[in-house]
């Protein structure tokens, strides 16, 4: 009877842990290995097949190299993770190694010392040189690096090659081509663009691209960082709103797209009910899993430029979709940084290519050859890009990012005029500028 209470406790603990999904390899200590004296917690959002195994294997290799260290992995759902991390940061109990998209939220953590400075560590052993500069730039705040990126994603205009050919049209090169294509496909009872904007970020891509083509990347960066008197109500932002609403009026999007989930939009495109889809490169991995034969029809072009716009049509919207930072409170920062080296090791980069995602580290030519054809085409657009336009919701501070997504959804719904939406963004940026130090 004496052994029962601990047993009972253990089973309760196991029940409670059940939702946290501990990886099998950390559940029992390895035979013959010395007992672990250091425990590192590692949170990420790669909770789906493919990336999840790659990260788990990298952690296994790390644990093998450092038998005295045990890593507790927890994988969360995307939106739940943002909430959880914000709360844990505020209450001073962050994980030792945390997933990040870089940009505004990372800058906020860096400003308050919540994440460790990795600049010194990166300068050793040529670690820094292995990264693609643009990706590392997204993880850099005032010249100091606070995270290491693993995934680089780009948003490009995907289209169905067969549908285009069947209707005797070519992929768009200008904004007016876009409007013409809307007419052609709408008359043929095919949705020009698949879009499910319930979560607000899929529609935001249209605004980001249009604003970029109208005003250029620099204008956005200046407005975001409060430089040179640039603001979010400058005329290119208003023009972007106008052009976006013109697309809506041209029946570019399916009925009720604002209330539809992103998964339903993807299946509309994969089922060939829609001709085009503005989406990130991660979409290819999903398409491969859901309808592999579709990849043969899948092609991409850069988002078209607008007449008289200041922005180059070679600029690509993209960013880091998986990066890792070390918490400022982590009691074993050297060991945690060592784990980051394992998470960005050449084996991981190669595996990343194999599942069809673009790594943020320069891959070997052999690894790059593993990319599926559509991803390789998108990567070519990314390489030819003259600048990388960051996602607003990852570059801006969280409140301004939320305002951007809300106002863009309002533009789509027609409840806001372009001038109103721009004025709301500018006002929110002014307010936020008083509360946040500029990153």
């Amino acid at each position, binding site marked *: 009877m004496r052994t029962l209470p601990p047993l009972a406790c253990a089973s309760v603990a196991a029940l409670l842990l059940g939702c946290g999904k501990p990886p099998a390899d950390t559940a029992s200590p390895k035979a013959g290995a010395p007992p672990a004296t250091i425990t590192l917690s590692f949170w990420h959002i790669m909770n789906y097949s493919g990336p999840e195994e790659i990260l788990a294997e990298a952690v296994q290799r790390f644990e093998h190299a450092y038998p005295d260290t045990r890593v507790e992995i927890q994988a969360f759902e995307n939106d739940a993770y943002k909430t959880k991390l914000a709360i844990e940061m505020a209450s001073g109990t962050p994980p030792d190694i945390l997933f990040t998209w870089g940009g505004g939220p990372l800058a*906020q953590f860096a400003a308050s010392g919540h994440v460790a400075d990795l600049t010194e560590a990166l300068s050793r052993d040529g670690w820094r040189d292995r990264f693609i500069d643009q990706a590392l730039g997204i993880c850099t705040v005032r010249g100091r690096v606070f995270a290491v990126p693993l995934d680089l994603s780009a948003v490009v205009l995907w289209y169905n090659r067969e549908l285009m050919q069947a209707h005797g049209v070519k992929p768009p090169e200008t904004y007016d081509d876009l409007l013409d294509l809307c007419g052609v496909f709408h008359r043929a009872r095919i949705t020009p663009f698949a879009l499910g904007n319930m979560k607000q970020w899929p529609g935001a891509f249209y605004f980001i691209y249009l604003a970029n083509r109208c005003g250029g990347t620099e204008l956005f960066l200046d407005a975001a960082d409060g430089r040179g008197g640039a603001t979010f109500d400058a005329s290119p932002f208003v023009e972007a709103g106008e052009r976006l609403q013109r697309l809506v009026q041209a029946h570019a999007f399916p009925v009720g797209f604002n209330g*539809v989930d992103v998964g339903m939009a993807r299946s509309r495109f994969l089922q060939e009910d829609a001709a085009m889809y503005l989406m990130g490169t991660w979409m290819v991995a999903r398409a491969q899993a859901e309808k592999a034969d579709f990849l043969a029809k899948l092609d991409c072009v850069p988002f078209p430029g607008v007449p008289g716009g200041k922005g180059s049509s070679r600029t690509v919207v993209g960013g880091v979709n998986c990066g890792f930072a070390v918490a400022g409170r982590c009691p074993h920062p050297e060991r945690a940084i060592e784990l980051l080296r394992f998470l960005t090791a050449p084996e991981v980069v190669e595996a990343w290519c194999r599942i069809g995602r673009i790594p943020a580290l320069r891959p070997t030519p052999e690894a790059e050859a593993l990319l599926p054809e559509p991803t390789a085409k998108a990567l070519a657009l990314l390489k030819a890009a003259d600048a990388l336009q960051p996602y607003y919701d990852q570059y801006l501070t969280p409140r301004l990012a939320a305002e951007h997504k809300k106002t863009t959804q309002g533009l789509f719904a027609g409840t806001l005029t372009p001038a109103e939406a721009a004025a709301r963004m500018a006002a929110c940026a002014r307010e936020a500028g008083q509360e946040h130090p500029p990153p």
Partner: protein
Amino acid sequence: MNRRLATPLYLLPALAVYGLFVLTPIAESFRLSLFRWPFPSAQPVFCGLRNFADLLRDAVFWKACQHNAALLLMSLAVQLPAAIALAVLLHYPTRGRTLFRTAFFAPMVMPTAAIAVLWQFIYAPEQGLLSRLIALVRPGFAYPWLADPRTTLLWIFVTICWRYIGFHMVLYMAALGAIPEELYEAARLDGAGEWQACRYITLPMLRPMIGISATLSIIGSLKYFDLVYLMAGGVPEESRELMATYIYRLAFDEYQGRFGYGSAAAVMLFVIALLVIVPLQARSRRRSPDNPTGTAP
């Protein structure tokens, strides 16, 4: 041990748990509502009642209050009468009674997230069940059920009613079972018809249960959260938020982390709920001592 001492002593552990998990967070909300705390990693700064002053000027918050009021009225005007009607109908020994009862109660035991997904399919603009049914008479019909700022909440309220009518129905069925059969026999002897028996016996005898179910409905509509949070993402915030969803979005969602302002909104919800529920409770207590059932003498 002295009974007068023992009872409070036995209640103490429960009070401790209640205090730790209910009263402390409420007190903490009150405290936080006095701080300016713009984002999670910032240092909170005391700001007095400034959050409340901002809240009174916050158009989205007032819209949210209106939406709660609309949900409350709709719950009372639709859910309760429908639940009573179903309960009365199912009280008759009809064929397949258990089947009907189970079917009407089923939404209550379904997980909310599953209901949200199910109804998102029903409300899909072109391929959804509703649009396709209407397309039978009006070919090519498509409607943005969950993306029209004017009507989206209404359609979600329909789902909410669908979910809770079965719950209220079960309450009324229990109350109907407790009405003595003799009353109906006496009424029949006096020549009362089916309708008169319903009007003068069933409804008055249901009154206490109507009170309970109305109170549950009112409290439920004031703090309602889940289906609206899960289904109303397609419309701008001023057309979608309830008080509870707005509080959550302010404090936790979308990385906003405005804990101070969110707490102020939570305190407002607390005060509003108190203002509505205390008079209701007082009324039911007034009724209780000399007339425990609250029915007409």
